[in-house]
């Protein structure tokens, strides 16, 4: 495996993303909203909420808000990964790429890196903004700095794994489709389990505590490994040239 070649594919994709403002907006919108809007909501509620949020309930709210970084990590790569492969298909640029000495694995790795790095970077940047602003907003109420803590640390551990899951699912879906929007819509279906966990935790059926998040990390890792082999099996030169519609 030649990592330089894989990186060249990823770097090329980054250059293209830079010129596609919609891809950039899709990456930064959710982390910015969670990172900035949620602290503002908490600030507003603490001042005008008439006891809605207090020193007892505030940590639960903060933990619930921070789960959005996990959901975001699963959602955001859909915008990039689906464009990355379907875009190559639309521009018919895969055949010349496949005629180079690159291996299928190197191309796939490059596509995975490009689909993963920007969303994970955006999530991490958003989470830093979130932690700083939340600490500023909540320190006077709590009497201490809530962030950083193990809970958001665990979330940020699971986040890249969720993003990788998203990228791999989108590689598999993109290989069968020629339309970016359809690929994105289908690629979004994998966030349903994450949303389900979030809703279940909010309704009290399930606790998204550190232990369960670590278990979730283990499960997602296993799925990531399985999907890697599935996407590698899907990404074959001959299949791409003769069967990809």
């Amino acid at each position, binding site marked *: 495996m030649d990592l330089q070649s894989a990186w060249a594919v990823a770097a*090329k994709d980054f250059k293209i993303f830079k010129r596609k403002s919609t891809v950039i907006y899709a990456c930064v919108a959710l982390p910015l909203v969670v990172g900035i809007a949620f602290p503002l909501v908490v600030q507003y509620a603490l001042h005008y909420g008439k006891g809605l949020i207090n020193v007892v309930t505030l940590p639960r709210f903060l933990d619930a808000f921070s789960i959005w970084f996990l959901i975001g990590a699963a959602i955001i790569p859909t915008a990039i990964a689906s464009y990355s492969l379907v875009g190559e298909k639309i521009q018919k640029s895969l*055949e010349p790429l496949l005629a180079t000495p690159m291996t299928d694995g190197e191309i796939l790795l490059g596509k995975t890196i490009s689909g993963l790095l920007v969303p994970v970077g955006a999530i991490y940047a958003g989470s830093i903004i979130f932690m700083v602003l939340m600490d500023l907003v909540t320190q006077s109420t709590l009497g201490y700095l809530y962030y950083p803590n193990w809970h958001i640390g665990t979330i940020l551990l699971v986040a890249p794994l969720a993003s990788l899951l998203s990228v791999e699912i989108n590689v598999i879906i993109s290989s069968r489709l020629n339309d970016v929007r359809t690929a994105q819509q289908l690629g979004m279906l994998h966030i349903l389990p994450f949303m389900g966990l979030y809703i279940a935790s909010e309704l009290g059926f399930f606790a998204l505590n550190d232990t369960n998040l670590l278990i979730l990390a283990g499960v997602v890792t296993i799925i990531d490994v399985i999907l890697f082999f599935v996407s590698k099996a899907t990404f074959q030169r001959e299949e791409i040239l003769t069967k990809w519609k």
Partner: protein
Amino acid sequence: MIETENLTKKFGDLTAVDNLTLHVDDGEVFGFLGPNGAGKTTTVRMLCCLISKTSGSAKIGDYEIGNRADQQKIRRMIGLLTENVGLYEELSAYDNLDFYGRFYKLREQKRKEQIEYFLRMLGLWEKRNDAAGTFSKGMKQKLAITRAMIHDPQVLFLDEPTANLDPEASKTVRDFILELKKEKRTIFLNTHLLDEAEKICDRVAILKTKLIAVGTPQDLRRSLSGRKIKVQLQRVDDTIVDAVKKIGFQVTEITDNSLVVDVSNPEKENSAILKAIEAAGGHVQFVTEIGSTLEDVYLKLVRG
């Protein structure tokens, strides 16, 4: 440089290429002609290790198609212009070429030199920082050929390089290929433009799933279409036509003042024909050999 023996590709029940046997010499420009669906692109894809062969064998240089260990080596020594240019439209011309140069382990300085050399050669250097998406079709095609050349390949596969181009752009691309021909590169040219093949290629093969014919354009014209002479007269009448037929020649076309006669060896047979015409009262003004075109040969072969 390129050798195939009984090379066959099947997609399920469909045979795309059937027992193709040919060889292309080092430094030769080889034209691969055939109608749509004849198996030209499939052959190129097999030779470029993009798809597997069903049976038979093929070699590029010393490397065997289908041998896993040789695939990377083959891809390093070939350049491919695909039927669709497949450029990254958002990237500049320079970035498109630089991206591909990286896969062939060209050092940065060498990449820069190669890119500048080819872009200047094609008159695109001034537009190197423009997005490829802003280029005309002809410019895109030239850029795509440059992309295939960036690592200085020994063998260049060009799949329909002038398809969908206007005449001016076609000429530019054709002239560029002729420039490459001077560098003694082996060029495998897929085309259905016979005029193009005749102008550029040293030899051509005609494919219709199976190989129908192979040779120089001149040889194919002569061997498959025969030779014809046109005799220009003051006036043609039945007596003259009968006189030519009587000495064993076929008259294929008659006008008021000319005859077209099928011959096998005009250098020897012309004098007998002219004597017969003169004896029948004809006044010959001049005689010319009519060359049949590659198109005549092609249509004759492809239509079976």
